[in-house]
C-alpha cells in the first residue's frame, strides 16, 4: 500500500464544518425571507443589509472558503502554505456573521465587533492564499484570477470595516460613498472573479470538455477587473461617469464570460444532465436574467428591477453555482478519505453513487421555482408572491441541508 498524499485533499474534518455551516446559513437566509414585507424592501434598508450579510458571509463566503481549502492546491498546483489555518476561519466567520447580522438589525454598537471578527477571519484566509500563491513559479490565467480576486477581497473587507465603524457612529465618514466600492470589490471583485477563474478548471474537468479557447475568459476577467477599479475610482472622485463605465464594463465582461461558458458546454464529451449540470445551467441563466434586469434598471431607474436583478445574482447565480459544486466536492472528499484506501481490496462506490438522487432533485426543483417566484414577486412588489416563493425555497433549503449531511455521513 502506497501512502496517500494529502497535498491535494486536505483532511475532511477541516473542510466539513464550512459546508455544514454554509448549508445552515443558507437555510437561515431562506427563513429570513418570511420576515420581509414589500414596504421595507429597499437596497439600503437595515433588514435587507442584514439579510445580504447573512447570505453572503454565512453561506457564500463560508462555502467558497471551504471549497478553496481543497481547490487552491488543485488550481495552483502547489500545496497550501498552512492549511491548518482554516480551522480558525470557520468559527471566526460564523461568530462575525452572527454579530454583524444582529448589529444591522437592532444593535449598531456591536456591528464593528462583528466587522473586526469577520475581518480577522477573511484576513487569515487571504494571507494564507497569498502565501500559497507565493510558491507558484509560473502563473496561468486561473492562478492570476485567484490572485486578483483575493486582492479585491482584501481591500473590499477593509472598506467594509471602515463602513461598520461609521455605521456605529465611531468615526465620521460618508458611508454611501464607500458602499459601491465595498459591494463591487467583494461581490464582483471577489465572488464573481473567483467563480469565473475556477470555472475554467472545474467545468471542463467535470464535463470532459476539450479544444475550447480560453481567450474570452481572459478578456472577461480583464474587463470585470477594470470595472471594479472604475467603481472604486467613482467612489473617490464622486464621478457618475466612472460609475456608469463600471456598470457597462461589468455587464460586458459577464456576457463575454457567458459566451465562454457556452463554448465549454458545447465542447463537453459528457452529455449527462445530472444535478451538477442542471444547477449550473440554472445558475448561468439566472446570471443572464440578472444582467438584463440590471441594464433595464439603468435605463428606467425603477428600484424593483435592481432588487430582482440582485436577487437573481445572489440566489440564482451564486447559490446554484455553489450548490452544484457541493454535489461534486463533498462526495470527492468523503470518498477520498473513506474509500480510496479500500481501492483494490473491496468494492468501492463511484462518486455518483454517493449523491442523494431524489433529494437533490427536490432541492433543485423547489429551489429553482422559489428563485423565479421571488424574482417575479420583487418586480410586481407582491407580498404574497414573496411568501410563496420563500415557501418553495424553504423546501429546497431543507433538502439541501439534508443532502449535505447525507453526503458527509455516507459510508
Amino acid at each position: 500500500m502506497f501512502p496517500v498524499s494529502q497535498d491535494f485533499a486536505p483532511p475532511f474534518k477541516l473542510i466539513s464544518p464550512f459546508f455544514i455551516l454554509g448549508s445552515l446559513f443558507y437555510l437561515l437566509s431562506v427563513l429570513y425571507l418570511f420576515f420581509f414585507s414589500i414596504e421595507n424592501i429597499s437596497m439600503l434598508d437595515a433588514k435587507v443589509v442584514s439579510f445580504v450579510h447573512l447570505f453572503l458571509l454565512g453561506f457564500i463566503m463560508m462555502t467558497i472558503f471551504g471549497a478553496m481549502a481543497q481547490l487552491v492546491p488543485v488550481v495552483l498546483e502547489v500545496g497550501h502554505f498552512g492549511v491548518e489555518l482554516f480551522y480558525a476561519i470557520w468559527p471566526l466567520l460564523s461568530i462575525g456573521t452572527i454579530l454583524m447580522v444582529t448589529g444591522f438589525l437592532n444593535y449598531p454598537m456591536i456591528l464593528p465587533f462583528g466587522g473586526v471578527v469577520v475581518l480577522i477571519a477573511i484576513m487569515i484566509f487571504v494571507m494564507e492564499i497569498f502565501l500559497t500563491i507565493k510558491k507558484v513559479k509560473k502563473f496561468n490565467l486561473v492562478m492570476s484570477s485567484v490572485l486578483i480576486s483575493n486582492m479585491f477581497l482584501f481591500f473590499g473587507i477593509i472598506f467594509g470595516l471602515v463602513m461598520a465603524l461609521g455605521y456605529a457612529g465611531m468615526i465620521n465618514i460618508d458611508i454611501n460613498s464607500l458602499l459601491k466600492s465595498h459591494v463591487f470589490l467583494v461581490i464582483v471583485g471577489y465572488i464573481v472573479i473567483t467563480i469565473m477563474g475556477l470555472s475554467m478548471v472545474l467545468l471542463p474537468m467535470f464535463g470532459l470538455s476539450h479544444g475550447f479557447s480560453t481567450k474570452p475568459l481572459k478578456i472577461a476577467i480583464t474587463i470585470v477587473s477594470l470595472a471594479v477599479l472604475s467603481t472604486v475610482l467613482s467612489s473617490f472622485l464622486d464621478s457618475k461617469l466612472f460609475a456608469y463605465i463600471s456598470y457597462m464594463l461589468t455587464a460586458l465582461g459577464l456576457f463575454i464570460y457567458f459566451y465562454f461558458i457556452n463554448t465549454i458546454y458545447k465542447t463537453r464529451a459528457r452529455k449527462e444532465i445530472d444535478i451538477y449540470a442542471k444547477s449550473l445551467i440554472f445558475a448561468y441563466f439566472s446570471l443572464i436574467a440578472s444582467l438584463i434586469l440590471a441594464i433595464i434598471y439603468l435605463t428606467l431607474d425603477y428600484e424593483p428591477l435592481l432588487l430582482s436583478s440582485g436577487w437573481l445574482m445572489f440566489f440564482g447565480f451564486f447559490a446554484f453555482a455553489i450548490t452544484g459544486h457541493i454535489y461534486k466536492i463533498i462526495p470527492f472528499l468523503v470518498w477520498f478519505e473513506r474509500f480510496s484506501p479500500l481501492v483494490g481490496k473491496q468494492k468501492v462506490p463511484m462518486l455518483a453513487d454517493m449523491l442523494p438522487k431524489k433529494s437533490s432533485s427536490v432541492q433543485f426543483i423547489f429551489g429553482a421555482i422559489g428563485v423565479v417566484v421571488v424574482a417575479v414577486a420583487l418586480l410586481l412588489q407582491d407580498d404574497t408572491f414573496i411568501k410563496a416563493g420563500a415557501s418553495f425555497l424553504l423546501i429546497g433549503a431543507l433538502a439541501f441541508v439534508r443532502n449535505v449531511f447525507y453526503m458527509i455521513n455516507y459510508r
Partner: protein
Amino acid sequence: MYSKEELFLAISTVIDPEVGFNLVEMGLIYDASCDEEGNAYVKMTLSTKACPMHQLIQQWVKEAVLKMANIKNVEIELVWEPEWNITMANENVKKALSRG
C-alpha cells in the same frame, strides 16, 4: 516478460471513480512495457491537469502492475502531450458519455 496488452489488461482494473470507466478504455494509458528483470514502465496521461486524484490514480496504476507476478519495479511517466481528448476513448465510453 509481459506484453503491452497484458500490462494494459492489468491496468484496466483501475477505475476512475468520477466517470466510472477504467483508465485503459478511457484512453489514458499511452504505452506500457516491461523488461526481463521485472521493471515495468507505463506512459499515461489524465483527462485534466487539475485532477485532484492524480497522485492516487498513479498509485493505483503502480499497484495494479505490481500485482503481476515477478514485477519488481514500476516507473510511471505522466505526460500531457498529446493532450487527452474524448476521441482517444474507446467506442463504449464515447457512446455512454454522449447518451446523457
